[in-house]
């Protein structure tokens, strides 16, 4: 679904991403890295908000930013994104925010609300539909953003530290919901986080540090390969040794 080849990006002279190469398929994929590792930058590149300094991104086999008419538009149809920074319109209600987002994807208000109903129930937001977003707490706003990202039934879901600001119960609810979507709807999920406790042993993980892809693969297999008992130890080991071991 997503194929990244030799991707680099610079902020001015500063290298934010350095020759990343990886492939993502349907399922729950984790992008793990500390603050400043380049997770948000990578997501901005995948969503065409930034253009790469070098390298290529292929979405379902088609190059992103190829300059071909409709290339980016076709990619945007399959992407759902939850950014690290909240992007909700605070002056509108939950319903109005969802309808607006649906409209931007060419989906009528009726269909938008029909698509959103089940998700709103699962995330316990059904009774907040007419509340102004400004009146919601951070956790509820984050849930609204997730519902919004799923309205147009994307095949690729990118979440940039989506659980930040949520209490443990809400985080657990959110992550289990996203995992279920990845499994049942065969969605390619890329969950960017710096929290080890959000990652399961059977997850595919990409470990990013200082703009470089340190290692990628299934968590359990990588831990076994490097003879460590958990992911945190593996990360510390890699950070200390500066090893790069791609797919």
């Amino acid at each position: 679904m997503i194929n990244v080849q030799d991707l680099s990006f610079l902020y001015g002279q500063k290298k934010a991403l350095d020759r990343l190469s990886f492939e993502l398929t349907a399922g729950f994929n984790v992008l793990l890295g500390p603050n400043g590792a380049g997770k948000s930058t990578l997501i901005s590149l995948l969503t065409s908000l930034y253009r790469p300094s070098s390298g290529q991104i292929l979405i379902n086999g088609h190059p992103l930013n190829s300059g071909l008419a409709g290339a980016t538009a076709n990619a945007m149809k399959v992407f759902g994104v939850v950014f690290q920074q909240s992007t909700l319109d605070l002056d509108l209600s939950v319903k109005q925010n969802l309808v607006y987002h649906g409209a931007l994807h060419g989906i009528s208000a009726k269909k938008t609300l029909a698509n959103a109903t089940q998700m709103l129930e699962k995330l316990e937001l059904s009774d907040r539909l007419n509340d102004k977003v400004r009146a919601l707490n951070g956790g509820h706003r984050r849930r609204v953003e997730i519902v919004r990202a799923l309205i147009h039934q994307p095949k690729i879901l990118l979440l940039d530290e989506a659980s930040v600001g949520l209490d443990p119960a809400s985080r657990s609810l959110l992550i289990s919901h996203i995992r279920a979507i990845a499994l049942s709807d065969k969605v390619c999920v890329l969950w960017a986080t710096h929290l080890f406790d959000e990652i399961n042993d059977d997850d595919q993980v990409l470990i990013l540090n200082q703009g470089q892809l340190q290692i990628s693969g299934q968590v359990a297999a990588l831990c076994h390969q490097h003879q460590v008992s958990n992911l945190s130890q593996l990360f510390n080991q890699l950070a200390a040794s500066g090893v790069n071991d791609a797919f």
Partner: protein
Amino acid sequence: MPFNAYLICFSGILQRELLRFCQQRTRLLSALIRPLLWLVVFAAGFRAALGVAIMEPYGTYITYQTYITPGLCAMIILFNGMQSSLSMVYDREMGSMKVLLMSPIPRWFLLMSKLTATAILSLIQVVIFLLLAKFVEVDIEPLGYLSAIPAIFFIALFLGALGLMLSNLIKQLENFAGVMNFVIFPLFFLSSALYPLWKMQEASLWLYWLCQYNPFTFCVELLRFALYQQVNFDALLWLTPTATLVIIIALLSFSPLKGAKLKRGN
């Protein structure tokens, strides 16, 4: 994408702008109070001193209030256009611009929809102002309201695009608010909005030429004639290519993450 998708998208953007406008009641109030102050207080005070000789499109002597009404309508449109661009700068800084950019609809269509929605809001405000102007004896024939609609719309698209172009140059919200004033007041005062240009010519030739070729003067004159069911072809001939050029530059120069990228680089 199917044509229907574009219609839904435009409708969504228009709906959002209308909702936000309705919720910001002070915005409508300030949009109306500003020109009403000019019309009721300023014009009343200068009424005796500033009579207006017979000139096109008026067939007779008119009051000063009647003369400045089109200029004040254009002022409403100018402020609304700049305010809309201010909100885009705010959206860009706060991150909510990203929602717009994640749309599969082409960017130019999204921006034109936003400009059109702004033009519709300007139209609503101008109509309300003209109805209130009746109370100070500014009488316009009913057909004049209708014939002014295309002119108001066209001017609003132009001034909205001008605001968008400015917002593309300005990185931060605080700077844009300052630039707004730096742009709005010269445009307004160096035009035929408050006084006929032949009066300016008597006072200063170089100021006259500045006013003569100020695009805002053409906006005012286009509207002035349109309110009297006439077309000012000179103004239209000047404005059409100018507006087209400004709209194209505004769309091409739009950089959604100008401020955000700079922050990360620093």
